[in-house]
């Protein structure tokens, strides 16, 4: 069937072009560590759970948007699945976990298309591909988090370009520096991504929101969530997925995994409880959005700390994160800028609370890195947070300005009025109102 050969050759050419040796084919798998099926199973599950967080986030954010923007808002998360999903396997993993180039970025052309690790097993007894997939989900969710800050007023095309560049220029370096062998690896404690994920996304959101300006009509016009039941379900899925996010970050299926899961559960519950208690005191009413915001605050706060604090510490972190986020959101109202879905107020603030706060509740099991005492550790923590905040803010600012001036990022007033769903996607979220 010679008609089909060209395709075959084309691929071969493509592979050759990219310098990919056909690694998997001749690989010697004898000298590898044995696979631990149990750990592999849990890491596969964790990968799946973190994937579940992305539709969860789409629901969480989508429910809070106005009816006319519900699809556009959900698309921000789904587009991250498509775009970063592809870029991660091509270059993202290589940039995060390749050989360190001066401690700030990784690179290894053998890791392009995950070629080199197609058949290898890591020391933890899991196929390297599983780790790459697990990390890939983190890379997907981080830019999707930012989207909440400028929801309801961003063009889709510009957004897509933004998250791709942000992922390569902000996420990958930070991930490499703190986790992948860069200059802060092994110093700052960031169990599952307080700095790398939540603080970097929080500050990116803040900067982008400030640059793009408020939505048309904000804050004069009341902007009501179109469907809070969706937001509640989203929060539920996020909590569920976070077990993979945090407990999976142990890259094991053992004691630390259990501790991370326990801390996650305790902090989420404490965050939720603390938020509704506060609302009950202030307004005599506990809201459902408050409860789920508290869940999120607790989950974010425990993220950097999950494997390293015990139950009392987790409860306290969750408990204090909520009032601080609450305060930050009120402050936003005062300052008048428009962080649509409070990405900074939740992820930025709770990320800092967790990153700093964990120093005081460490279980002290990780040995070596603590020999220098807790105030050294505190300094490492501050360093990690500052680095993420400053670096992410700076590059984000450059990106949004560039993109807005070229392809356009801010949605025109007319399109904002018509709604993103119709103007950008040619769709309507709910056909309910169509009588036919």
């Amino acid at each position, binding site marked *: 069937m010679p008609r089909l050969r060209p395709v075959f050759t084309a691929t071969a050419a493509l592979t050759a072009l990219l310098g990919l040796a056909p690694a998997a084919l001749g690989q010697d798998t004898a000298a590898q560590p044995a696979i631990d099926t149990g750990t592999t199973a849990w890491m596969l599950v964790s990968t799946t759970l973190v994937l579940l967080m992305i539709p969860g986030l789409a629901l969480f954010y989508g429910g809070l948007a106005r009816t006319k923007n519900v699809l556009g808002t959900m698309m921000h998360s789904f587009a991250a699945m498509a775009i970063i999903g592809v870029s991660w396997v091509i270059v993202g993993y290589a940039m995060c976990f390749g050989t360190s180039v001066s401690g700030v970025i990784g690179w290894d052309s053998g890791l392009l298309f995950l070629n080199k690790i197609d058949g290898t097993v890591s020391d933890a007894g899991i196929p390297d591909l599983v780790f790459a997939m697990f990390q890939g989900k983190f890379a997907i969710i981080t830019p999707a988090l930012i989207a909440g800050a400028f929801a309801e007023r961003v063009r889709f095309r510009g957004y897509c370009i933004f998250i791709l560049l942000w992922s390569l220029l902000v996420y990958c370096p930070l991930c490499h520096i703190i986790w992948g062998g860069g200059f802060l690896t092994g110093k700052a404690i960031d169990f599952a991504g307080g700095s790398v994920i939540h603080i970097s996304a929080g500050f990116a959101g803040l900067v982008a929101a400030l640059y793009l300006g408020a939505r048309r009509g904000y804050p004069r016009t*009341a902007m*009501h969530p179109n469907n809070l039941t969706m937001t509640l379900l989203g929060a539920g899925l996020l909590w569920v997925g976070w077990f993979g996010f945090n407990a999976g970050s142990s890259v094991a299926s053992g004691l630390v995994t259990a501790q991370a899961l326990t801390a996650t559960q305790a902090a989420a519950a404490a965050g939720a409880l603390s938020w509704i208690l506060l*609302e009950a005191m202030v*307004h005599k*009413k506990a809201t459902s959005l408050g409860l789920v915001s508290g869940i999120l605050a607790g989950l974010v706060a425990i993220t950097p700390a999950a494997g390293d604090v015990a139950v009392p510490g987790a409860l306290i972190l969750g408990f204090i994160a909520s009032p601080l986020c609450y305060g930050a*959101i*009120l402050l936003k109202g005062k300052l008048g800028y428009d962080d649509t879905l*409070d990405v900074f107020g939740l992820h930025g603030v709770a990320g800092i609370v967790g990153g700093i706060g964990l120093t005081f509740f460490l279980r002290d099991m990780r040995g070596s890195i603590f020999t220098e005492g807790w105030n050294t550790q505190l300094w490492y923590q501050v360093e990690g947070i500052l680095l993420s905040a400053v670096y992410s803010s700076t590059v984000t600012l450059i990106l949004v300005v560039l993109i807005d001036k070229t392809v356009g990022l801010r949605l025109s007033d007319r399109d904002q009025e018509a709604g993103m769903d119709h103007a950008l996607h040619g769709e309507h979220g709910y056909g309910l109102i169509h009588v036919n």
Partner: protein
Amino acid sequence: MKLVIAIIQPDKLDEVRQALIDAEIGRVTVSRCTGHGRTGDIDLYRGQEVSPNLVPKTRLEIAVNDAFVDRTVDTILTAAKHSGGEKGDGKIMVLPIDDCIRISTGERGGDAI
């Protein structure tokens, strides 16, 4: 024949309907609307009080024969009030009708109401 249109608070719908039935006005058409009222229907959004500028309301349409207009209006007036009358309790409008037809039978005019 007149068309009585009443914009009332959604939480009063059941009471108004019951009162109308008790006054032997059994037919009514109900729909949802939102109104630009003077009053605020305060919602909470992450610690902030949000007062929507369009407040959900319920809209009743009742076609009645002329003799029934006053009874209808009075019934609604009584049942739709919150503790003696509050801002936002709503409004009643009476419009003239030229003709009315029951689809199932084709009856016309007063009989079809």
